[in-house]
């Protein structure tokens, strides 16, 4: 057993609405969408037309600048519509399922018999390559680069996040199959597990290095785990993937098909029947939340967790990388003298509300901003929730003045949006820090490529 890495700084938001470890029953939806906006920096080019028949694994669109990176349909059916936004930007490519289970056949193979190139080719052909992302930048991996390691976080510490032990139980062999595949891409595979849980699925894996972590969120973020084990220096690359994606990768080789199945957790204070549901990548969340939410308030549906997820409609679609749907109150109300009130029911990392006097176990929180955008005033807040040897405020200032050298020196290679989400949460000045970081990353990509 390896040494336990203790994460001291961070914050667990005591959000109401945690799901129990039970499976809920819901029908699979008719509509599925692949959203190019889920993939940073992607310029999609359509490969199929509206009305085309597709199978699970049929290419819908590809990356204009890297055509080998393809994005495929999760189900068999018909390409129903392409929803576009401003300047005809493609937002959602929607497939209507026909109920049959037709799958493109990619052929089963033993990864040990294939070369690295053949494995890459197979993953790309089957549309699984986008699930391998790289640090720095948190974008789809570049097959021409040689990563120094492959890293998988075996748990999610975000508010109301799924319990990976529960999600993965019974899928241990599929997980190992996935490991066998990525070991052919990079032999140095690391897995982060929580010290507090059994994590049998991960601890029993063969041929990987296991690291135990202890502490509050963001201990489960892969970026934090990498920082504490094999920090990324200039010029280095680490590839990452998530457990359920790893299973899909394993199944491509063991069964020869694109497996879009996902187990997602449905959580949040406004959900009636919280729990885990079996669905697919890009599925409409409508069957999950219809008649399953409290209706007296305006609600916010989030694909993903409340810190990093994407806001979707009640009939919106699950994001490509998400295994969680959260429903919280919208909170678009005016609060009379809210800043001056004792604030007994309010959640704050500071002790500036009297809620510290009667600590609640769980808070029903909404999406209200609780204030307006201000300049950076309070110092030292971000450091409290970013467990890395990084000075976040100085990095953000470097990004705002577009100082590439400083951004590099101050550690932008080690950060993804999810790592600074808590900084954004606690920020007194309500700064949009995740967007700022992404702006910096985009600038780095543009200037250094």
């Amino acid at each position, binding site marked *: 057993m390896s040494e336990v890495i203790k994460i001291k700084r961070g914050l667990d938001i005591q959000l109401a609405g945690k799901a129990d470890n039970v499976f809920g029953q819901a029908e699979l939806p008719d509509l599925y969408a692949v959203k190019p906006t889920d993939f940073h920096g992607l310029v999609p080019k359509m490969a199929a037309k509206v009305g085309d028949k597709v199978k699970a694994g049929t290419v819908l669109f590809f990356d204009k600048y890297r055509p080998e990176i393809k994005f495929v349909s999760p189900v068999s059916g018909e390409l129903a519509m392409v929803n576009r936004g401003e300047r005809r930007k493609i937002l959602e490519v929607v497939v209507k399922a026909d109920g049959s289970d037709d799958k493109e056949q990619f052929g089963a193979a033993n990864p040990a018999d294939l070369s690295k190139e053949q494995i890459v080719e197979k993953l790309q052909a089957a549309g699984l390559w986008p699930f391998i992302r790289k640090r720095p930048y948190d974008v789809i991996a570049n097959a021409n680069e040689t990563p120094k390691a492959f890293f998988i976080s075996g748990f999610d510490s975000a*508010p109301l996040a799924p319990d990976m032990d529960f999600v993965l139980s019974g899928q241990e062999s599929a997980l190992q199959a996935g490991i066998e595949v990525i070991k052919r891409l990079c032999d140095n595979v690391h897995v982060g597990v929580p010290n507090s849980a059994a994590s049998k699925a991960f601890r029993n894996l063969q041929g990987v290095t296991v690291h135990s972590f202890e502490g509050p969120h963001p201990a489960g973020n892969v970026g934090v785990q990498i920082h504490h084990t094999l*920090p990324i*220096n*200039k010029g280095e690359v680490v590839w990452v993937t998530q457990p359920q994606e790893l299973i899909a990768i394993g199944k491509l080789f063991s069964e020869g098909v694109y497996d879009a199945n996902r187990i997602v957790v449905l959580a949040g204070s406004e959900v009636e029947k919280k729990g885990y549901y079996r669905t697919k990548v890009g599925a409409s969340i409508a069957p999950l939340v219809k008649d399953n939410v409290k209706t007296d308030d305006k609600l*916010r549906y*989030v694909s993903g967790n*409340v*810190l*990093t997820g994407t806001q979707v409609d009640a009939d919106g679609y699950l994001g490509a990388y998400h295994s969680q749907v959260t429903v*919280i109150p*919208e*909170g*678009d*109300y*005016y*609060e*009379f*003298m*809210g*800043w*001056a009130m004792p*604030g007994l029911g*309010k959640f*704050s*990392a*500071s*002790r*500036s509300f009297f809620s510290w006097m009667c600590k609640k176990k769980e808070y029903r*929180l*909404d*999406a*209200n*901003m*609780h*204030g*307006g955008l*201000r*300049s*950076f*005033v*309070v*110092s*030292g807040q971000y450091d409290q929730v970013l467990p890395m*040897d*990084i*000075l976040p*405020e*100085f990095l953000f200032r470097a990004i705002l003045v577009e100082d590439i050298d400083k951004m590099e*020196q*101050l*550690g932008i290679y080690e950060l993804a949006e999810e790592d600074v989400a808590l900084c*954004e*949460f*606690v*920020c*007194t*000045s*309500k700064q*949009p820090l*995740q967007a700022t970081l992404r702006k910096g990353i985009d600038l780095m990509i543009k200037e250094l490529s």
Partner: protein
Amino acid sequence: MKALRNLFDNIKPHVQKGAKFEKLHSTYDALETLFFVPNTTNKNGVHLRDAVDLKRTMAIVVMALVPALLFGIWNTGYQHFLALGQDASFWEMIGHGALKVLPIVIVSYGVGLGIEFMFAQIRGHEVQEGFLVSGMLIPLVLPVDIPLWMVAVATAFAVVIGKEVFGGTGMNIWNPALVARAFLFFAYPSMMSGDKVWVSGLAKGEGVVDGFSGATALGDAASGNMAKFAEGGAFDLWHSFVGMIPGSIGETSTLAILIGAIILIYTGIGSWKIMASVFAGGYVMGLLFNLWGANELMQVDALHHLLLGGFAFGAVFMATDPVSATRTEKGKWIYGFLIGFLAVMVRVFNPAYPEGVMLAILLMNTFAPLIDHYVVQGNIKRRLKRAKVAA
């Protein structure tokens, strides 16, 4: 509440972009957000936000200043009647103090907020809350007999030159309240020093009972008058701690300031690192001077130094202003220590005016970015070293 909300909703269309009173949008916005936390929700990024905002933060600092203000009001009355040699009830003292102090507070807020609103209007920004604290700090660091027009001029100078020229709240280099005080200190030294200005009425030459001196403790020490510092004297440890001594309105009572410090530290709004290191710095310098002991000021007990003058007030409320202080955690230790160290040093060596907290803080405000620079460089070097070790 409902009626007020309706009133705001009715006015809103008239101050939106393109409407007739578009120019008043900042003012409207400031008033609306004062009464109602806005209904804006998060769009991108996090869906939840911490309940704390800048208004709350500033309101808590103002709350932390209230004990010092209340004590200052009482002490103004107490010193006044002490000077006259008259007996007065508690409420007479409060009444006299309030009449003297509250006008200064009102002028400071009126002038400062007026200018802030004007600048926000011109820039088309929201009004930021920084001045809520500065407006309270300025009166508390002034002598009570200061003419109100001077308060107005100094506040205007502090807000315009100390803050707005740099871009407003969050951008200033120096603590605006200290800029106001420094302006008065250099422009009207006769109203900011000596032994006439600290007790209300003295400057106008109202009668003084025999043996009363309006000099501050440090003033007495500088002129070699050490008798009062002994046990039982007017400036002994206890009196200095509680604050029944002449001085700027809010600075005399270390006790009241400590209550504020506890509020700031407990809520996490004031940096305990800065406060602790300022006191440590002052204590170390005081000890060094004790060893040297060349004149009376040097012989003032190191602990006593921390209770006198504006030391505690500066440490708790001025040095901790996050905008003008260092912003790195390591930097805060260095910054605070040097403030305390320099404050006592300037205090002892300054021949004209035996106090140095203001100058020490302003000086370290100036150097705060430099301290941060070295801390940041340290971080960068660590990262580079890591790369070399790995390679």
